Structures are given as structure tokens and as C-alpha cells.
């Protein structure tokens, strides 16, 4: 049977995150957006509340929450500030490869320190010349017996400048294409790691995004998470898990844009009446609600499939969820600015920031076009 209600704990979780967002995130979001400063205190607070690193299994002392729980957390965070949400959720993105591909020993060694203090991690897949075509990456890992030596550059690394640990996808032999790709967990303090300057981004300005260059970085073999040939599959499997919570953050952003619009439309008067009384505005609001609700439903369905181990279909549903949520969030945010008119185009009102922030949802963790490729591949398979 179909069940749409959240459990009591999920309701409590949603309520807790919502309060945290209302009191700690929303009042500070514009300031961090303006300064581009990294919101470390807010992140530390989120860590204290236990809403980071939620996927660490209970047998290791974590909470072992499911994807649906992450979806609930991310919608609430996304409604507050997508930049701060990214900084928080990137930990799951960077730790999932170890949780999914690592041995118990590696999980204890590399992941458990994240439960002890508010550490950050970064997922290093994209490169200057390799984005949607992730299989073409060229960061090289040379096998030196008891260790690997990494050389190459990674691009658009969220939390890049603030991370304690990198999960790096590299190739042992580029001629093998995806069959040469491996995954290494790299201590951010290793010699030979050079951090690029923070990118001066259009939106999500409080998240730390930069390039990272590895120059002869020694990584012990015990940090090999996926052998050559297994790394690419691990990257995709990781993205299957994180795509849905990412989509849900977009739902949160869209929800916030819609709620701002509803409030403003009731207050703003033109032609001696609230603009909410005009059908042109009402239809925009109605479309926003339809989009937000459908995005959320697909996120829940994708999460349900992931939590129930339906992995093949989960990839399809997570792509549907990300495709719809990211695109609709951009549409909703654009319409929100339209409803606010000239005011919406200024930084005095919150919707222009949402519009800038949600644009990235169509780009990172697989562009909307890549999601369509994944969806079509599922539809056309024999």
C-alpha cells in the first residue's frame, strides 16, 4: 500500500531542523552570501545537532539514517540557504564512497573521526577537462608498491579549502578509460596538495569551492577505497545515493521562493488591491505549488527505493528527482523574482539570492542534461 506519512521521529527531525534553520541559518544567510565567508560556526552547530554524517551505520556508532531522512533534512536546510546546505551535505557525498566501498577497518580509520569532531570532507571527481564526462578524468595515481603517488588537478571541489579529508577519483592508466579509475582517501594535510583560490561564484557563495592540485602526493595503500576498475562504479553508486538528497535541497529552495512569493503577493498593492487578487499572480503561485509538491514526491519515491535496496530502479528515480527538482526550482525562483518585480531584483529581498543559488542545482552532481541521459538509458535498455 502507499504510505505518505512520516514517522514520529521523522516529524521530530523535520521540526528540529526547521527550527535550527529559522534561528541560525536564515538570519545569517544574506551576510555569508555577501561576504563569501565560510559559515564554520553554523556548520559546527549542525554537527552538534547530529544532522551531518547521518549515513554512518549504527554498528560503527553512527545514526545509520536512511536516504529519506537525509531528504527531510536537506529540504529544510535548502529552504534556509543552499550554500550552507551544500557545505553540510558534501560530507555525505565525500564519505559515501568509503561507506559503500571501504572495508570496516577503513571506515573506522577514516570515517569515525567525523563523529568525534566537526570535520569536513570533499569529494574530488571533476577536473578542468572532465565534468559530465567523468570517465575521462586524468588525475594519475601511480602504484609504488606500498603507496600511490597522485598527480593532477581537480576542479569545483566543494569544501575544498576547508576539508580534512579528500576522496579522490584518479586513474591508474588513462588508456583503460573507466576501467582504470580507482578511489583513494587522502589526508588533506599531505605534502604536495595545493589549494586554488576560492571561486568567485554567482550563487551559493558561502560554500567553499576551489580547484585542488596534487603534486606527487603520497597516499598509503591502506587508503585505497576502490581498486583500478572499480572506482568509476563506486563514484556512480555514490551519486545514486546523494543525488536524491541534493534534489531535495532544491525542493527546499523552491519552497522558500514560493513562500516568499505568497507573502509578498498578499502584501503588495497595485491598482488598489493586493496583487494576489490577480489571476496572473494566482496562476504563478499555483504552478509553483504544483512543481514543489511534485519535486518532493519524486524525492521521497527515489529515497524509498534507495532505502529499500532497489538499486537499479533507484538510479532511475534519483535521476528523475534531481532533473525535476533542479529545473523546477530554477523556474520557481525565476517566477518569484518576477512576482517581486523590481524589488525582487535587489538584494534587499531574499528571492534574487535563491535564484542565484538554485541555478547550481541544475549543474552540480550531474547536470540536468546528464540526468536526462541516465533516465533515457533506463528507458531504452533491452
Amino acid at each position, binding site marked *: 500500500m502507499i504510505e505518505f506519512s512520516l514517522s514520529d521521529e521523522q516529524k521530530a527531525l523535520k521540526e*528540529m531542523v526547521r527550527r535550527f534553520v529559522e534561528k541560525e541559518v536564515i538570519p545569517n544567510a544574506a551576510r555569508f552570501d555577501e561576504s563569501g565567508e565560510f559559515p564554520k560556526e553554523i556548520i559546527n552547530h549542525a554537527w552538534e545537532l547530529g544532522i551531518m554524517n*547521518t549515513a554512518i551505520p549504527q554498528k560503527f556508532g553512527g545514526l545509520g539514517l536512511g536516504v529519506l531522512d537525509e531528504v527531510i533534512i536537506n529540504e529544510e536546510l535548502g529552504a534556509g540557504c543552499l550554500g550552507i546546505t551544500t557545505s553540510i551535505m558534501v560530507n555525505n557525498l565525500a564519505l559515501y564512497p568509503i561507506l559503500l566501498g571501504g572495508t570496516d577497518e577503513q571506515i573506522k580509520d577514516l570515517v569515525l573521526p567525523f563523529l568525534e569532531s566537526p570535520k569536513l570532507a570533499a569529494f574530488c571527481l571533476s577536473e578542468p577537462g572532465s565534468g559530465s564526462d567523468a570517465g575521462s578524468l586524468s588525475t594519475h595515481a601511480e602504484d609504488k608498491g606500498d603507496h600511490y603517488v597522485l598527480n593532477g588537478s581537480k576542479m569545483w571541489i566543494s569544501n575544498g579549502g576547508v576539508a580534512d579529508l579528500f576522496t579522490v577519483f584518479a586513474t591508474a592508466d588513462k588508456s583503460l578509460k573507466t576501467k582504470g579509475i580507482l578511489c583513494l582517501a587522502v589526508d588533506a594535510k599531505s605534502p604536495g596538495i595545493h589549494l586554488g583560490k576560492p571561486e568567485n561564484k554567482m550563487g551559493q557563495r558561502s560554500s567553499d569551492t576551489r580547484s585542488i592540485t596534487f603534486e606527487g602526493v603520497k597516499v598509503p595503500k591502506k587508503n585505497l577505497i576502490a581498486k583500478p576498475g572499480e572506482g568509476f562504479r563506486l563514484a556512480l553508486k555514490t551519486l545514486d545515493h546523494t543525488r536524491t538528497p541534493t534534489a531535495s535541497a532544491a525542493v527546499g529552495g523552491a519552497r522558500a521562493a514560493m513562500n516568499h512569493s505568497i507573502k509578498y503577493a498578499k502584501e503588495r498593492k497595485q491598482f488598489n488591491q493586493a496583487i494576489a487578487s490577480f489571476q496572473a499572480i494566482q496562476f504563478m503561485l499555483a504552478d509553483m505549488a504544483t512543481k514543489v509538491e511534485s519535486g518532493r514526491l519524486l524525492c521521497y519515491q527515489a529515497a524509498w527505493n534507495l532505502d529499500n535496496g532497489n538499486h537499479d530502479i533507484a538510479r532511475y528515480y534519483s535521476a528523475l528527482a534531481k532533473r525535476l527538482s533542479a529545473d523546477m526550482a530554477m523556474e520557481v525562483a525565476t517566477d518569484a523574482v518576477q512576482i517581486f518585480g523590481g524589488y525582487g531584483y535587489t538584494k534587499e529581498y531574499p528571492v534574487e539570492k535563491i535564484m542565484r543559488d538554485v541555478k547550481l542545482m541544475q549543474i552540480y552532481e550531474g547536470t540536468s542534461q546528464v540526468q536526462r541521459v541516465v533516465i533515457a538509458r533506463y528507458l531504452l535498455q533491452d
Partner: protein
Amino acid sequence: MNIFVMLKQVPDTETKIKVTADKSNIEKNDIKWIINPYDEFAIEEALKTKERLKEGTVTAVTVGPDRTVEALRTAVAMGADNAIHVKTDDVVDTFQVAKALSEVLKKESAQIVFTGKQAIDDDQAATFGFVSELVDWPSASVIVKVEIAPDKKSLKAERDVEGGTRHIIEMPIPCVLAVDKGINTPRYASLPGIMKAKKKEIKVYSFADLGVTGGPTVKESDYQLPPERSAGKKITGDAATQVKELVRMLREEAKVI
């Protein structure tokens, strides 16, 4: 130290209140319920007291129907060790509630009892006083600071009084303290706390278990919504006329100057 928190579940501050057809109460369906905000300060102070003493247990107790268990679980998620639910589906008055709470406090050998200085629904600020009388322990209200003596046999409580001065009261333990806002910043329920709260077994008492008999002595019969605000007045004319009219209205109608 056996620390207790008495809390009440109240309608969310943003609730649109409707009166029932027979005017005996407010419509309680479709209300979002929250912990009385003053009681949240009480929970936080109880948790802080335990942390300062480095020992003890914090027990949250409430009276009401099944929905009030949610408030207890939130208290556990914030860090309370135990929770007690005095379950009743009846319409009860403050005295019955205080009687039930006082029986729980005696039965469970409570020592320091925290609660909010008032509930934001009916604003009676009566329960803590009734309870302290029934258990025969000292009490104080509008507390903004608590300091337990090193021998843990007494405490000093500070309350704000008019004019920015502080009234410092020393009292023996056990006692009842009704706290004011500003005493602390309540923490959020943490995610591990929420998971723990879900599994927590909550002790349940009925009024019969506690020997609370008889019905309410106070009956509420005529709830009314506050009168709607009348529309504002617009003063017209040139500046000099407007000022003259404004001053006249302030003087003769509002009688403020």
C-alpha cells in the same frame, strides 16, 4: 539529585484560535501543539543543573491526553533522562493538574522542580504555586538564575524585580522554581536525542493511580474572542489643520496628553 520538570503542551503561538460551539473551550482539532515556551527554559535549566552538579537525573512530567506524549519525547530528545505521563482525556482544572503533579513529585521523591513561570495559553501562572502548597515545599517564580549550594541542601534563586534590581532568595531543597525567559537559551533536540527519545519507555499514571478523585471545581463556560479592532481614522486637510486635529484627538479622545 532528582530533578523534575513540569511541562505543559500548549497551542502554537501562531494558531488561529476558534471557540467551540458551546463556548466552553477552544477548538482543539487541527492545532499544532508545542511545549509551553517558558517550560522550555525550565527543561534547559534542569539539564544545565544536572551538568553543573555532574550528577543526577532529569525527569519531565506532564498531564493530558495522548498527544502530550510528544512534548515529553521532545524533552527526552533535548536530554531529559526520564518522562512521566499523567494520562487523562477529561477536561481538568488547574487544581486537579496540580494535585496529580504533586502526587507524582512525592511518589518519585523529586528534589528540585523546575517549571515555566506561566503557560502561554491561559496565562494563569497558578500551577507551580498550587503544587508547592500541596507538596509543602517552598517556591519562587520569575527566576532568572539558580545556584545550588555545595552541600546540595539548599539553593539561591534570583528573580528580576521592578527597576532592574534582583531579588535573591535562599531556600532549602526540595523546592519548586518557576523560571522566566532570559534564564538561558534552550538547546535544540539533537538527532541522536530524537532517536533515543523514540525508544524511551514513558511511565504512565492515571488520576486513579495518584488518588486524584472528583471532577473539576472550576468550570469554564464562556470563551470569547477579543473584539475586532476598529478601523483607524484618517486626518485630512492641510498640515496645520492635521496637527491641530491630531492634538485634539490625542487630548480629548485618547486622553494621552
